[in-house]
Structure formats: C-alpha cells, structure tokens
C-alpha cells in the first residue's frame, strides 16, 4: 500500500500496535482509566465530563467479571441498603429475626417478586406492562370457575398458565407487532383482563381448593421458615437473571432499551424480542395468580388488584431506569425485598398497614431523586466556582 507521508497503516498485518504509536495531540487531559478499585460508580460522572476525545487507545482487558461489576455498580446500592435494613431490624425489633418472619415475609412478597422478574426485562427494553395484576386476577377467576366445574386440578393449572400466555400474546401483538404505545395498550388490557375476570366469575368466590394443594403453598422447608414454593421462585429468578445478564438475547434488550433503531442495525429483532417479553410477563403473571389463589385459598375477580403499581415501584426502586436500557435482576430483587422487609418490620412494630404505603412511595421517590439532587448540587457548585472566576 502506498503511504507517501509515512503515516501508519491503519490495519497492521497482525497484532496490536504499541500504544505510543497513536498520534497523540496532547491537548486533552486523559481521563483516568478506571481501575478496579475506582468502581463503576464513577462512570456517569466521567461520561458527563464532555467529549474528551483523546485519552488512550483501548486499554488492556481488566479482570472485572460480570458479578464483580454488579456488586460494585449502582445497582448494588439497593443490595447494601437491604442488608443494612435487615440487620438493623433484627437488632431493634425483638421478634424480627425468626423463621416465622422469614416465612410470612416471603409468602407476602412472592407475587410481587414473581411479576417483577419479567417486568424488569420489559422496562429495560423501554416498554411497560400495567396489565400484569389483571392477568393474575383473570387467571385466579378462571381457576375458580374451572375447578368448581369439576375439572381435574392439574388440567386447571395448565389452562390457567395457557390463559396467561394468551393474554401476554395479546399484549405482545399489539405492542410489538402493531407498534402501539405499551403504556396506553396495557392500560386498556388492564381494564379488559380485569373485566374478563368479572365476566368469568362475577362476584362469586371459590374457596374449596384441594386442601393438600393449598397446604403445600403455605408449607415451609423444615424449620427454616422458607416457604416450599420459594424453590420454584428461585429457579425463575436464576433463569431470568441468566437470560438478562448472560445471553445474547439479554444483551439485545439493553441495546434496544436505549435505541430500537441502533438495535435493528445489528440484527436484533426488536418486535420478536418484545413479543417474547410480553409472553413472559403474561405467563409469570398467571403463575402469580395461581399462587395468590392457592395461598389465600380464594379465587376472586379482584385478586391481586393494584399489584401492578406495587411491582413497578419495586422494580424502579431496584435501580431499573423507566426510560429503558438500565437495570439488573439482583438490584430488583433487593428492591422487592427491601419494600417487603420494611413493611413487615414496621408491621411488627405496630405501624398500621394502610399507612405503610407511605414508606413504599417515599422510598421510590428518594431512590430516583437522591442521585439527581446530588449531581445537581455538584453541578451548581461547579458552575458557581466558574462563575466567580473574574471575567476580564
């Protein structure tokens, strides 16, 4: 290749060029390459520092793996807050640290926990699903009617899960393939699915489920207080975490959450990805509906109503960005458990249950406002310093 000026060829025959071969213009301060100790928390700040274009040619790989990154990242804040709250509650509230607590706390949070998993993926992909609680309600109603009609309970459960799948597919077609705004669509299906639940079961309630089954759903593993169903829940948690954080599909979700267009250009099938997510929310919501029915041994049309907002609150508290592109399953897990723990601790402390929602709301607001306020203050301080510099 002719190269009259003697400048470097861009594609060396093999191997990387030495770093000092780059035409350093030497006018910008190089951003410090983030070291392991520095942590990911520093990232946003540096990102905002403007376009420092010359720093260095892409550096050697650093040994931080996915898990370590999550533990050092912003998502981790919630995990630490959760730990602090659990420890504090165990010390201060007498009856808190006991198997009974663990049992009831987990039994209470399971529906939220379940639905929060697919919801995390949906919100990361830049969409939302408000119809989840209605799907759970519809499943519950269906379950009651079919069981009362004398159907085999196994078949009933299968039909219920399929109903959830179908409801999710309905959302998915409208949102993913017809391109309708998910907020509006799922407000519609929120009403529709809850309405169908009413159509199915009216204002009846079905309670006579097989005692063995309902007992199973409230049973605990030995003396640990951990509900038996948690085993299944943990399997789902791991499955969703792996899909989001360690698969090509998960990588695609983050990309399309930020930019659907850019995602399309690397071969991500945006519509199909979203459709699958809505299938997942539908199915998992159905599982939550089944759990709800058997745990309280009652199939009613208004089961789990209002749960959608509680789930979204927990997911956002867990560090998922409502704009999409950002979030993690461990963070969301911490978010769900944090709300559950605080509520349970306060209940033990005789704070009225209905007032507790103030805590949920405040936590949600603080979790999103605090980082922004902090950076705003920093910004203000910076600009004040600059402003006070004398203008000639």
């Amino acid at each position, binding site marked *: *290749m*002719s*190269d*009259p*000026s003697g*400048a470097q*060829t*861009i*594609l*060396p025959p093999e191997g*990387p*060029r030495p770093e000092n*071969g*780059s035409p350093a213009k030497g*006018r*910008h301060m190089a*951003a*410090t*390459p*983030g070291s392991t100790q520095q942590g990911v928390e520093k*990232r946003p700040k540096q*990102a905002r*520092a*403007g*376009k*420092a*274009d*010359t*720093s260095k*040619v*892409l*550096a050697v*790989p*650093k*040994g931080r*793996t*996915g898990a370590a*990154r999550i533990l050092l990242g912003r998502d981790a804040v919630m995990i630490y807050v959760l730990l602090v709250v659990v420890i504090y509650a165990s010390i201060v509230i007498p009856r808190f640290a006991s198997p009974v607590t663990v049992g009831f706390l987990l039994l209470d949070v399971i529906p939220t926990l379940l639905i929060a998993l697919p919801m995390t993926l949906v919100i990361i992909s830049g969409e939302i699903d408000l119809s989840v609680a209605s799907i759970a309600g519809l499943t519950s109603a269906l379950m009651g009617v079919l069981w009362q009609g004398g159907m085999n309970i196994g078949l009933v459960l299968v039909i219920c899960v399929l109903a959830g799948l179908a409801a999710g597919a309905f959302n998915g077609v409208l949102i993913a393939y017809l391109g309708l705004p998910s907020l509006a669509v799922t407000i519609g299906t929120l009403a529709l699915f809850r309405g169908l639940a009413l159509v199915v079961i009216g204002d009846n309630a079905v309670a006579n489920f097989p005692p063995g089954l309902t007992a199973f759903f409230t049973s605990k593993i030995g003396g640990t207080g951990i509900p038996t169903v948690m085993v299944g829940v943990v399997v789902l948690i791991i499955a969703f975490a*792996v899909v989001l954080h*360690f*698969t*090509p599909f998960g*990588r695609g979700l*983050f*990309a399309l959450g*930020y*930019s659907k267009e*850019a*995602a*399309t*250009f*690397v*071969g991500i*099938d945006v519509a199909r990805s979203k459709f699958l997510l809505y299938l997942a929310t539908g199915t998992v919501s159905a599982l939550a509906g089944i759990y709800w029915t058997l745990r309280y041994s009652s199939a009613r049309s208004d089961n789990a109503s209002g749960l959608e907002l509680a789930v979204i609150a927990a997911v956002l508290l867990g560090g998922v960005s409502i704009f999409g*592109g950002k979030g993690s399953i461990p963070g969301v897990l911490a978010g769900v458990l944090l709300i559950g723990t605080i509520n349970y601790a306060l209940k033990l402390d005789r704070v009225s249950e209905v007032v507790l929602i103030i805590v949920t709301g405040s936590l949600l607001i603080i979790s999103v406002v605090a980082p922004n306020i902090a950076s705003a203050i920093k910004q203000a301080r*910076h600009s004040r310093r*600059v402003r006070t*510099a004398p*203008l*000639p």
Partner: protein
Amino acid sequence: MLTLRGALKTFGPVVALADGTIDLAAGEIHALVGENGAGKSTLVKILAGVHQPDAGEFLVAGQPVSFRNVADSKAAGISVIYQEPTLFPDLTVAENIFIGRQPKGRFGLISRVEMRRRAKELFDQLGVPIDPDRVAEGLSIADQQIIEIAKAISLDARVLVMDEPTAALSGVEVDRLFAVARRLRDAGSGILFISHRFDEVFGLCDRITVMRDGTYIATHETGATSVEAIVREMVGRDIDALFPKSETDVGDVVLKVSGLTRPGVFHDIDFEVRAGEIVALSGLVGAGRTEVARAVFGIDRYESGTVEMFGRQLRGKDPRAAIDAGIGFVPEDRRKQGLVMELSVERNAALTLRHSLAKFGLISGKAEREAAQTWGKRLQVKAGSPEHAVSTLSGGNQQKVVLAKWLATDPKLLIIDEPTRGIDVGTKSEVHRLISELAGRGIAILMISSELPEVLGMADRVLVMREGRITGRLDRSEATAETVMHAATASLEITR
C-alpha cells in the same frame, strides 16, 4: 457587528474552547472552518446563549453583552440554524415560526389567521412554497432549515449562524439555501457559515476564519487564500493525498442485486459488487440510495427483486440473515443507528458478536471484552476506558467503533453510508485509507456518499441514482464530476 475575542469555555477538566475569536461584519458571509473538536460548536453555542463563556470579550454592535440564555441571544438579534433543526413535529409550520410570540388578536388570544398570513409572507419573501398550515412532522431537512430561516427573519435577526446547514442537503436544496443566504447578506445581515465542504466555503463566503484545537488561528479574505492553505492551518500539518486509492485485484461477485423494487422509493435496481471492489452509490439526497442499502441489508422490505450473497438469495426484511451471510452495515446516522450511544464502548463493539461469543447460549463478560478490544485496538479507537459510554468519544472515534464492530464479524461485504459525515479532515483520510485497505483485503465495499470528491477518489465503479432508479453506471476512468452530476440530475441515461 459581532465580535468575540478570547472566549474560554471549560467543562469540568475539559477545555472545549481556549480562544474563541470571531469578527463578523454586516453584509458578509463569513466561514468558520476547523476539524471536529476544534471548538466550532462550542463557539456557536456561546453565540446562541446556550453556553456562557468562562472568560473573554463579547461585543454585539459595539456593546459588550453577556447572554444568560437563548432568549438573550435572540433578543440581541442572533439566530442559529443547526444542522438538523429541531422543530415541533405536532405543531403547524406557522406556529413553529411564531411559537412563544404568536400574534394576538381579540381578547388577547392568539390570532391564527394573522399568524398564517405572516408565515405566508415570509415564505413568499424567501421564494419557497411551504404550506404554513401543515404540521412540521415529515418535512424534509431542507424545508426545516428554511423554516428556521423564516423564523430568524421574523425575529429581525441581524446575525445568522448556520452550523453545517448543507450536510444533509442535496445539490438543488443547497443552491436554494445559498440563494436565500446571499439575499439576506445583500440586505445587510451578517452570516456565519460553518461547513466541512470547501467548495461551498470558497463559493459562498467572503472571509474565512480557521480554528484548531479550541484556538483561533487566522482569518483570510477568500480571494487571498487557497484550499491547501486553509487545510494546512486546520490540521496544523500538510495533509497527504486525501484519497489513498490502492489498486486491487477484483475477485468474484459477492453481492448481486436484481430487479429490486419498492414502488415509490426505488425501481428495478440491478448491480453487483465484487470482492475487493469499492462501488459507490451516488446521486442527490432523496434519490433512494440509502433506501436501497437498507433494503439490501434487510432493514426495510421490498416488493420484488432479489438480493444474493455468493449466489444464495437472502430473505427480505431480516438483518440477522444479512449479517449471517456476511454483510456489515455502517449506517448514515451514527448517533441513532450506528451506535447505542449510552452503552459502553465495549458493549457496542461486541454487539454484533453476541451470538458468536455465546457458549452454550451464555456470554462471558471476559470474552466479550477481549473481542471488543481486538478490533478497537487495531483501529486505534481512543477512549478513556472501554467501559465509558460511547457517547463520550469524538465523532471520528465513534465511527471507528462502528467499523470495529462490523470488522469483528469478518464481513464479506461492507455497506458504508456516508463514511465521513461529521468527521474532521484528519480522521477523514484515516477512514478513507482504512476503506481502501479493507478492499485490498478482498472485502467488497458498497459506499454511499454525497461528497463528490470522496466518490471520485475512492470508487472503482460509480452507480448514480436519480428518483429511485440507477441512471448511470460509470467506471473509474469515466467518472468525473460532470458525468456523475449529469446522471444525477439530467434525464439522459449514461451507460457504458
């Protein structure tokens, strides 16, 4: 009428502008040139009141000013027209012009009739037929710029700043814009014109100011300088041949497109690209070039025709299939299509590899990082850290990340839409050399470009499109500015 001297602007530790200096007289068109990152945009934003300088002297009509916000700048008679104007898509054209200062009628309420009348008047004055009642959504960029200019006139702007207005315009639209600019100059306005295109700078402007590394270098009368001299000042060194074209052996047919048609957009598109060959798709903006490329890559659907890679037909509307068949696509809009700006450099660079990296369906973060860095390093991508958002990189380095992510897939065909849009002169030749080298290694290249010198300098063959059809097929020896422009504009078909 406007003077800025020694303006300093820092963002945290980064000095965006060290010595912003410009002197704009009434009744002149003044060019501001410099590489990307030279501080032009920062200077523009200071004039616009978006940024406040940390230090420096700023005079408008001889009076010192200090803008706190955009409104202050507007009040001082300065209007800025950005490369891609941001109108309000849901509002009508007339309302877009008068938003915030709509004429009032009875009871102090907005008078739509009056607003429409005034908008019509402005368009008549500019000699353009735009319906003031249509909503802004769907307007071409050229029309959007005209609306911005109409807005500036209605604001009685004495200073008009145009930040790379022609980057996305076709020849006809550029001519119309320049006619408007000259008319405004002759009426006594001062126009600051920022462009990367030297033919425009020299054809339109009276004086040229050069910036480099955030610092003022010099101002010249256009007649008293040359392209070479300006480029030297911009880069700070002599630039070698802008288009390093190396002779390569052309191999077998890689891509074969036959009869590709999407009614109203493109018709009967036939062409081939061979291994090691650079084929340029030329023509005016809106001729259907990008649309053809998108259809080939499977972004958009087409109604009839076939796309074959190595003789095997590709499924339409399936980018995954195209990628698997060995096509890489460097799209025209880097920020929206080429990259996920908020994601890290390494995630972006590895996004195309996500399937090939997975073992048993799972991706290891380490493998991902190493894969991302292999090509990042070879292309000399400069980033603070591979974990930083790709938005923190300069335009040239962002383009390298886009190239890196496709090169990592070992493509057989690379479609590059506007390879050097918004990239500074220095990096531009680096990108050109890279494309040549890739072709030298046997990759088939389909390049779309609106810059004629780039087309003529790089391509082995030039296909010219007009109104959705290929109207010219020119060999390197036949392709000249005249033949290409003729095929792009006239109705006569030139074939060999």
